[in-house]
């Protein structure tokens, strides 16, 4: 069975509509959403209501969490102080716009969803704010999947779609302990695991303006990264009309090619 995974919708209604349309056209009816329904974009209520209406299983993203809890994230969530200031502006605007009912819905979202050996999270199993970047340390990446007890981990949050296969892993160790003295050493064989990042529907950062999502085949475990064109100009217009920072519109129309990247992606905010 094929199922679709979407993430980081970011209140961009034209992008969400285009992606759902693309999924419907293929006759796929299981859709999982990895959160960040709101933030940056101009149509937070419309996007939340569409997801609710369609009954799409959703986990909570970093923006969804922050809208509910107030800005819990420390500065480390932002790549720079400038990005932080803009983030705060967008946060305030989204907070003002969202209806109480939609806020309640975001508050009710779980931090993870599990279907057998598949685990769905926003950032990582540790935190909605942790970035699992495609080239992060392979052992650390495997640790996230393994500790969570999954075969395949679906995540978003980086806004860059990718499929990473981790295989043929082993770790040799030698133990010296007060109880047992010197040990001969042993080798641990690591299991094969996959991380699938669904990219972003509403705020792509992979170098093109197209929305991205992924389709996973349950039987073969094949993953396809999909790109969908949508009416970017319509969203940009709405961003400017809403009085949101213009740079968000500029970013959408450039596919975020000059994106600021989090410097220390492995950093997890302890707060």
């Amino acid at each position, binding site marked *: 069975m094929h199922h679709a995974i979407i993430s980081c919708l970011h209140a961009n209604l034209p992008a969400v509509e285009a992606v759902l349309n693309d999924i419907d056209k293929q006759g796929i009816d299981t859709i999982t959403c990895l959160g960040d329904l709101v933030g940056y974009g101009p149509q937070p209520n419309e996007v939340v209501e569409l997801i609710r209406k369609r009954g799409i299983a959703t986990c909570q993203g970093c923006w969804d969490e922050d809208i509910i809890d107030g800005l819990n994230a420390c500065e480390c969530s932002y790549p720079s102080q400038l990005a932080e200031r803009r983030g705060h502006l967008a946060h305030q605007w989204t907070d003002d716009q969202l209806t109480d009912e939609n806020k309640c819905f975001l508050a009710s979202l779980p931090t993870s969803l599990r279907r057998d050996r598949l685990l769905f999270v926003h950032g990582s199993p540790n935190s909605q704010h942790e970035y699992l970047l*495609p*080239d992060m*340390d*392979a*052992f*650390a*990446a*495997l*640790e996230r999947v*393994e*500790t969570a007890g999954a075969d395949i981990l679906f995540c978003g949050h980086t806004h*860059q*779609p*990718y*499929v*990473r*296969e*981790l*295989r*043929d*892993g*082993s*770790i*040799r*160790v*030698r*133990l*010296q*302990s*007060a*109880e047992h003295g*010197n040990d001969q*050493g042993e*080798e*641990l064989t*690591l299991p094969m695991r996959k991380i699938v990042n669904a990219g972003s529907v509403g705020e792509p950062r*992979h*170098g*093109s303006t197209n929305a*991205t999502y992924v389709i996973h085949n349950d039987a073969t475990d094949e*993953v396809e*990264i999909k*790109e969908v064109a949508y009416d970017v100009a319509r969203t940009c217009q709405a961003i400017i009309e809403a009085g949101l920072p213009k740079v968000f519109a500029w970013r959408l129309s450039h596919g975020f090619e000059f994106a600021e990247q989090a410097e220390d992606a*492995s950093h*997890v905010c302890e707060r």
Partner: protein
Amino acid sequence: MIERWALVSGLRGDLETYELIQRDLKKTRGVTALFVLGDLVGPERNCDALLDRLRNPHRGDLKPDCIYGWWEEQLLAERGFRGERKADALRLSQGEDTVSALLNTVNPSHLKWLASLQFGFIELDCALIHGSSSDVGDNLTAETSPLILLDRLTRLNVNRLFTARSTKQFHLELTGGGINSQVKDLNGKREQQQEVPKRSVIGIGAGLNYTLYDIGSDKTHFLTAGSKTNPKGKGFA
């Protein structure tokens, strides 16, 4: 000349144990630093005398450098030093009585000092932390999956992590291995190979059980204060 560190934890208010360790260290060659990796306090006995001694070393004491541990975290949380968080972990695992016992073992005059203690030290290419950078209560042992141990080392980007939370004494070295990874994105596919870095996690023990670490030779010695063992006798290469 040998240069070695002494690593101590889990004193939990026991001044007598601390004095035995100090006496041991006085007889040991080359000890240049004494690190106390948390759990200075505990619910079993009044901790004020030990805290006084740690804060105001006697003449002849090796001066201790302290960080906070799991028990300090519980105490400080319950005393309002951690925002809205209370001693939830302690309450859950040992109940309300232990929480109040803990509050009674430490005079409030010590709280500010305890709250000023750091989470950990980075010395040379080593991290000294009560649990790990993941959590002060991270219970790393020799049985913990090497994948998790490697992750904790990677998070800190150090070659050695000295940890105390498990109260066990062990030196687990990652000696080899690797992993292949393939990344597919919209630009295509790329393969990566990564080797296991030569790194170690060292459990330093608790209470009378402490550890000496020889910096130059990367040797650990697991000792018990007051016993007759010669530091050389129990060395591990």
